[in-house]
């Protein structure tokens, strides 16, 4: 579903990603952990082209992201083509980024209505279904400012699902939440994983990674230090750096 080859990213002279290789199979839940500044969020943002790569390639479902290859040359895609690629990739942000001037329902219906068109009543029905699925069937007409952090993040997940994505990216979805609200968001994500959604998840929730994840990637200093099945990596880390990181967070 996702293949990354030798991905590099610079911010000015700072090299944030130093050659990331990654492969995620359809239906796989891939958890990315690592200390802050290790480049894990930047890598996630490269997958839907919110950040441009400086070197390397990323494919999602067989499509090269952000570029077209013709006659051995890479051509930059137009904004409209990039937008089309992003429609099949859902993203959930650390700070929710809900649209504050729209109700929960309008947040969910906005993209399907504007991007796909389709009859209003049908989109509304789909959105109501998604909000019910994340347990917010009674909050459809509420503005984000009146919802708790956990509820906002669940609306954000429903919003991303409304585009019927093939892949979901989660950028530290529970890091901005009060501890007592983390569980409700993780439950929704568990439910998604059970339904076979392909997910890449940058997180600090080691417990969730062990329980739900199919693979675990440990990043540090812009490289993948170690990856494998979560239980193995967590129980017997091979690298010193992984060991010391896990010792601190567990």
């Amino acid at each position, binding site marked *: 579903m996702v293949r990354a080859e030798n991905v590099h990213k610079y911010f000015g002279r700072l090299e944030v990603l130093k050659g990331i290789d990654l492969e995620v199979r359809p239906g796989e839940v891939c958890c990315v952990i690592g200390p802050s500044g290790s480049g894990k969020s930047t890598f996630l943002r490269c997958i*839907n082209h*919110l950040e441009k790569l400086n070197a390397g390639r990323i494919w999602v479902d067989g499509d090269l992201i952000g570029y077209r290859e013709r006659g051995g040359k890479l051509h930059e895609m137009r*904004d*409209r083509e990039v*937008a*089309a690629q*992003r*429609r099949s*990739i*859902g*993203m959930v*942000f650390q*700070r929710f*980024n*809900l*649209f*504050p*001037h*729209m109700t929960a329902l309008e947040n969910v219906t*906005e*993209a399907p209505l*504007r*991007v796909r068109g389709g009859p209003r009543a049908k989109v509304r029905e789909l959105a109501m279904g998604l909000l019910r699925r994340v347990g917010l069937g009674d909050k459809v007409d*509420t*503005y*984000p*400012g*009146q919802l708790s952090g956990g509820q906002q993040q669940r609306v954000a997940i429903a*919003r*991303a699902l409304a*585009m019927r994505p093939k892949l979901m990216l989660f950028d530290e979805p529970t890091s901005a939440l009060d501890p007592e609200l983390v569980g409700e968001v993780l439950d929704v994500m568990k439910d998604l994983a059970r339904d076979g959604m392909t997910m890449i998840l940058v997180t600090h929730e080691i417990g969730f990674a062990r329980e739900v994840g199919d693979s675990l990637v440990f990043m540090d200093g812009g490289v993948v230090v170690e990856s494998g099945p979560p239980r193995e990596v967590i129980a017997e880390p091979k690298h010193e750096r992984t060991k010391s990181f896990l010792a601190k967070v567990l």
Partner: protein
Amino acid sequence: MAEQTTLERVRPEPIRAVPVRHPGRWVAIAVLAVLAAMFVHFLVTNDHLHWSYMVDNMFRPPIIAGVRGTILLTISSMIIGVVMGIVLAIMRLSPNPVLSGVAWVYVWFFRAVPRLVLAVLFGNLGILWSRLSLGVPFDRQIGALFGLHDFEARIFSVRAVDLLSGFIAGMLALALSEAAYMAEIVRAGIQSVDPGQMEAAEALGLSRGQALRRIVLPQAMRVIVPPTGNETIAMLKDTSLVAYTPVTTELFFQLQAVGHRTFDVTPMLVAAVLWYLFLSSILLVGQHYVERYFSRGYGRAEKARARLRDLRAETGGVITP
């Protein structure tokens, strides 16, 4: 559930304390009362303020026509100014260097030239061009190259005096200058919106234009509306500048005309003060409602209203304090 228990609990005895005294306020009120009395005394006793003459003259048909002209100028130049301002701001923030450069030059020029100068200049543009026409540039010269005389490739042409007669010229001067200021206000508004909003919209697959129109601009409006209210009130007053274009269907020109004709200038100036006060006050009321509309989803009042709604739902419509 928590709300219900608080509602049922017996309230404790409220605090009874002696409030803080504010003697300074009473002194200030006394001083202001004396000043106000002095002002009223001046208004009533000064011989040069002919009140009945002023009231008789400030509602005459030409002056009402002037009021209408002033309102029309304010509204039309603000509408053009706001729309152009939004377009210019989006151009200025565009990654396209050509668009951004054009917007910068526009704002640079129209902010540099005083409105009064623009108003007079636009009134005299008819001297530069007798006709305004749209077509192929250098058409006559190109025609001459091929031996054709009187060759013209013009699609559309009007007499400049018809188009740039007073009112349109004055309106354009005000609108084009306003667009430059609005561009800066809108740009600040757009930049005040959390960049995460644009990212979220783009991640959903919205195009840049859709994201701007549906997500960023509505949120920027919260920041844009208060200074735009200011600009509208400033514009109401600046319409008096087009008296020099000259535009005659305008409030200040008409009031002065009465004053000059009767050699009684002061009462008409007071009438101008009163008219502008009245019109600005109407705008203030309008601004209040527009601001409230664009701050939906934000702020304490909105939250309190929502909490009240929830509470009412829980208690079945009755809230006993």
